[in-house]
């Protein structure tokens, strides 16, 4: 049977507010357990939530970025369930009246195809704490530092039809929230987590199949692998004439399999109702418009500008604008170099390669955009050639100094003095008279092949510093005799 996969994603994005959604406690990763908590996060009797307006501003920014309707009146609701790291016995979330309503994103795949993914809603909610099962000798430790951390839950329509499309969509959300500066995008620390709703149906069938939900997948790679694994599992069952059980599953990246967490029958009745401790959030048109005005340039807008302003290819423009940090790095460097193609090649080439090897983000680059620009200027003005520049870059990466300092210290400046190059060539010709004779006897085609030998000798003698643009014509002329 030819199956069509239907995917909807719920992405939990941690908003990078200074303090929590309903308390003044600081938000941070990796602090000592229960040190970043207030009465509110601990669920103390009598403690009351106070809404963080910064989270509201961020949610509205996101709404604008996905072309969504903004909820002019949105309401916090309580989602009631018992869990040890849920200190109040309910999570404050939004149900009937979310802050962000219907919107969409146009997602472009690597093969250039574009599809529109509908976004049902995005709502504000607080995170729970963490249960720690190790080191407590059969007991469970509770860390409430994360309790009441603000999340924006972004719910897509079931519009996604492949793992690649899912990853492209998540990457796009990731790029938007980091562009907006509303999320640090650090997936390893849980700043973005994804629930995958997936079902299969025979191609051409309108009705959806029974879906499963894979909870809490936290990397692009795992999202892709979890989807492939779940598609395979579901299609195996369906091919054998079986039925899919509606349930919540967990993806295990080590075994690359999903396994059942709980079935629909065990699902909680969350008894949502409007939170009586918080007033409805009423927005004014002015407020919403003011945020629209202050919205930064978004990735898709930036990619278009890079093509027109810098004459970059669509591919280069898309890669460079995929993260705000990379786009900023490119633009800062290029403001000095003023050669967009050269800068683009080096940012996407040597710099990205090194970052990947070191598993670092561009924001963590040891070479600043300014320093990087200075290096590229030395290529552009022929002080060094591209090959030497790679060595200079590696030295810069290791902190040996600026491009100019390294070029000076290592004497890497290209030899552009024609007299010096002529005498160097003369010495090489004298030492290789037989080759010179052969060259002079050969026809033009053969000569073109043979000249490489002499270029190599010059480069060797100059320790790579001879400028090939100058060497080549002089060499050709002198060999001719």
């Amino acid at each position: 049977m030819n199956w069509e996969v239907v995917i909807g994603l719920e992405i939990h994005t941690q908003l990078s507010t200074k303090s929590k959604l309903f308390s003044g406690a600081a938000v941070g990763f990796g602090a000592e357990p229960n040190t970043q908590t207030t009465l509110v996060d601990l669920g103390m009797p009598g403690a009351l939530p106070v809404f963080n307006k910064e989270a509201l501003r961020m949610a509205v920014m996101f709404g604008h970025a996905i072309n969504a309707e903004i909820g002019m009146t949105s309401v916090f609701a309580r989602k009631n369930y018992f869990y040890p790291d849920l200190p109040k016995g309910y999570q404050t979330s939004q149900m009937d009246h979310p802050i962000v309503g219907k919107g969409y994103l146009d997602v472009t795949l690597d093969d250039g195809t574009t599809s529109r993914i509908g976004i049902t809603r995005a709502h504000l909610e607080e995170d729970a704490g963490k249960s720690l099962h190790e080191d407590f000798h059969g007991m469970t430790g509770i860390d409430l530092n994360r309790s009441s951390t603000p999340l924006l839950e972004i719910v897509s329509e079931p519009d996604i039809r492949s793992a690649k499309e899912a990853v492209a969509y998540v990457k796009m959300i990731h790029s938007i929230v980091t562009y907006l500066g509303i999320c640090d995008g650090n997936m390893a620390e849980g700043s973005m987590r994804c629930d995958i709703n997936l079902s299969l149906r025979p191609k051409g069938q309108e009705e959806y199949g029974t879906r499963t939900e894979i909870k809490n997948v936290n990397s692009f790679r795992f999202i892709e692998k979890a989807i492939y694994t779940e598609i395979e599992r579901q299609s195996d069952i369906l091919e054998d004439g079986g039925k899919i059980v509606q349930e919540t599953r967990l993806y295990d990246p080590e075994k690359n399999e999903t396994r059942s967490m709980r079935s629909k029958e065990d699902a909680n009745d969350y008894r949502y109702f409007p939170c009586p401790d918080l007033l409805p959030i009423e927005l004014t048109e002015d407020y919403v418009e003011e945020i629209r005005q202050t919205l930064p340039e978004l990735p898709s807008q930036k990619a278009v500008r890079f093509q027109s302003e810098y004459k970059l290819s669509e591919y280069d423009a898309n890669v460079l604008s995929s993260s705000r940090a990379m786009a900023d790095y490119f633009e800062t460097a290029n403001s000095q170099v003023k050669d967009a193609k050269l800068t683009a090649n080096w940012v996407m080439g040597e710099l990205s390669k090194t970052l990947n090897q070191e598993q670092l983000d561009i924001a963590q680059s040891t070479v600043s955009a300014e320093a990087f620009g200075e290096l590229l200027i030395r290529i552009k003005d022929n002080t060094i050639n591209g090959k030497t520049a790679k060595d200079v870059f590696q030295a810069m990466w290791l902190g040996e100094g600026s491009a100019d300092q390294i070029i000076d210290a290592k004497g890497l400046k290209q030899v552009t003095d024609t007299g010096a190059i002529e005498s160097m060539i003369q010495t090489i010709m004298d030492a290789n008279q037989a080759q010179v004779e052969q060259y002079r006897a050969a026809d033009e085609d053969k000569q073109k092949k043979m000249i490489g030998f002499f270029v190599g000798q010059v480069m060797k003698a100059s320790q790579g510093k001879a400028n090939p643009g100058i060497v080549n014509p002089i060499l050709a002329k002198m060999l001719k005799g």
Partner: protein
Amino acid sequence: MFDQSISTLAAQLRNKDISSVELTRYFLDRIAKLDPQLNSYITLSEDVALKQAAHADTQIQHGDASLLTGIPIAHKDLFCTAGTLTTCGSKMLNNFIPPYESTVTGRLQNAGAVMLGKTNMDEFAMGSSNENSYYGAVKNPWNLDTVPGGSSGGSAAAVAAGLAIAATGTDTGGSIRQPASFCGITGLKPTYGRVSRFGMIAYASSLDQAGPMAKSAEDCAHIMQAMAGFDDKDSTSSETPNDDYLSNLNAPLTGLKIGLPKEYFGDGLDAGVADVIMAAVKEFEKLGAEVKEISLPNLNLSIPSYYVIAPSEASSNLSRFDGVRFGHRCEDPKDLLDMYMRSRAEGFGQEVQKRIMVGTYALSEGYYDAYYLKAQKIRRLIKQDFTNALQEVDVIMGPVAPTTAFGLGSKTNDPVAMYLEDIYTLSVNLAGIPAMSIPAGFSNNMPVGLQIMGNYFAEAKLLNVAHQYQQNTDWHRQTPDMAKGA
């Protein structure tokens, strides 16, 4: 001395006729002698009280005192008091010592008031008789065989018996007014949002409101002056500026329009109570007020509406008592579920468990629309009834409760009869308006309270109306015999 007004005592303190430490010791002695008969306190905070009293004396010495400086009061045991046991009348919290101070108790402390202790109450403020306390029932000082009303029964009994000058209470469906009525004292439930709920252990968040309980409207005004006002720690607290509750007390009542809702005088109202209320209304007419009959047509829907909304909110509010972080945890739990179930079954009393179950049911999938949403619609109708009526009249008057204090144990097996006790008080909470209970006479030797209801943020008006009545009557100066025994 126990029946003196706050302003008289404040003058004596300033004149150094007495020190706050002496006054505090006097009340602590009275409590030691008389409270065994009443059980109105759960916790006595003797050390805290004497420390605060000594501090108050220093302030008075330095001429740095407010009217409440050095005045001994009591707090209902659902206000979190830093370092002092706060039980909410429940076994669940019999070991809970809050690490922080509620806004209400903090403000009163800042105003110089001395905390004698924490008063008994129905568990988690659920009850109309104070028989639902894990720490035992409270007796009514006017007749030890009757209930003091609830849920702020301990506060009402303590003030009536002269075991505190004044006390804080909370009112979710009548919990200040009904015990004030039963015990013959003055109590005010302010407009929802007038007093901060921060640090008040929640029963039903959209209805709970703290207020003063004292001998007179004037004393209530002094307490209100300190406790009311916007608090940025409570999102539902109102930014409307406070009125001055004292400056308007003596305004004449000439031309005051009083509405008597006919629904408050129908079947079920005890004849003796009705007589007292009508006599009080006559008194107001003598003071120049005009009386007219009005209608609050949805009154009878207030009980079903309240008993859906309040338990729904309570079922969620009380989820945090799970044995994980504070409060009671069962012995040797087998697993997580066992810990939850046994901790809660052991920690909560019957009435609390009943309301949690009712609320859980009302919020459940498939029932939500029929119960919770419907109740919210009724709530809007009730609110509209009051808004309409208060366009015609300045205040609304009627009984607080259908009867005087009933016998201990007489209604514990009849929950519907118990819930009907609140018929005249619930709608005020559903609407969010302020209301008072003031002593208006006796029926069969038991006090009867007159209820005065007003428009949103009209506390100053209510206190003025009550004060004028009290200037011309002495029902609020009556003292139960047991209080004279020490």
